[in-house]
């Protein structure tokens, strides 16, 4: 793709790109994908804890969106619509009992960049913080799937309850209650690390 074409595609709104993509413009769809793929990837990664699966599921979600583009009525944003597809695919994938890694592994083949370690005021405090962080991740991983999905989208992806409800295909009230239940469970599980 030439730079001029790349530049023009980046200037188009999502709605305009959707119209072009519906007519079979692959570049237009690729631009739409570029705008949302990273967020989708990290949401799926937070659920699956496996970067290979996260990458595959993100590709699959985008391909599914391309196949079903003609049925997209544009009542919600393209982002939300693709998110909905991605979350459904991921939840089905997890329900089928595929391997769910408990540890994020840095894989050179996927060109990961090492996560930066946060600096702490003291070694002891830093150690406690790391322990809490590790325990929190374990606790989030152990949440029931519907609660975990809501927590990942709202807390890790910064979505509102409304946006998360569109992605999950449930009501806003349901998301609100799931967040409350998830936090209750996390607080109960992390009590020893929260006191003091």
């Amino acid at each position, binding site marked *: 793709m030439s730079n001029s074409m790349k530049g023009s595609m980046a200037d188009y709104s999502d709605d305009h790109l959707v119209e072009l993509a519906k007519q079979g413009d692959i570049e237009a769809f690729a631009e739409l994908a570029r705008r949302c793929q990273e967020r989708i990837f990290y949401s799926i990664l937070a659920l699956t804890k496996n970067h290979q699966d996260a990458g595959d599921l993100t590709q699959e979600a985008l391909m599914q969106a391309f196949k079903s583009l003609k049925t997209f009525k544009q009542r919600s944003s393209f982002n939300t619509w693709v998110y909905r597809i991605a979350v459904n695919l991921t939840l089905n994938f997890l329900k089928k009992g595929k391997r769910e890694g408990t540890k994020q592994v840095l894989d050179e083949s996927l060109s990961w960049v090492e*996560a930066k370690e946060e600096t702490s005021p003291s070694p002891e405090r830093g150690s406690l913080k790391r322990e809490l962080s590790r325990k929190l991740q374990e606790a989030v991983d152990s949440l029931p799937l519907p609660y975990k999905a809501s927590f990942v989208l709202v807390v890790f992806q910064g979505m509102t309850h409304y946006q998360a409800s569109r992605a999950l295909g449930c009501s806003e009230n349901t998301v609100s209650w799931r967040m409350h239940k998830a936090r209750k469970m996390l607080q109960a599980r992390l009590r020893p690390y929260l006191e003091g």
Partner: protein
Amino acid sequence: MRCKTIEKWLSDRIDGELSERKIKVLQTHLESCLSCRSYAAALEIIQDEARSIQKPQVSPSYWAKFTSELKANLSSKKTEKRLARLSVKRWQWAGASAALTLLIIVGLYFLLFFEKPVPEMVVFSYEDSLTQISQEIGRDPELENLFNLVVLASIGESLERSGWQDSPGFQENFILWENLSEEEIRLIESEIKKEEKIEEESDEG
């Protein structure tokens, strides 16, 4: 206000989903409830810790590879769709042609080979008919006599119509005599004599 409700409101407040009115009620409750204040503090710690979890950074080369794979898949999917549409059209045409061909074959079959059954005609020969009649009549003597009279009368009528009296008698029928044997001639002559004698006796009487 019940603590269970306050705990739910605390969760909504962290997500920025609580109304101003409810925030005020919440604040008032927290001022007097230690348990709910502890719970609120725990939720804040969990939220802060969750937000600070570093996600691995993905290098630009990963996304470049991801995008080129996606475009390749999109192109092949587009070709697949086009082929599928052609295939469906092809199958539709094939189906229609097959149906039409079948219709033509069935129509031709009925036209050429399917014949209406001809009602069976029972035909008796002349001899069979007479045999049939004789068998029926033979069972009844009165009917048999009547039948014989009818047949004789019919023969008589035929002879009158044919004008046998004007034709030469059988005595003068040379073709007839030439074909008879000597014995047959002598038998006929004796019969003629008997009949002549009977006529004479009846004339005298």
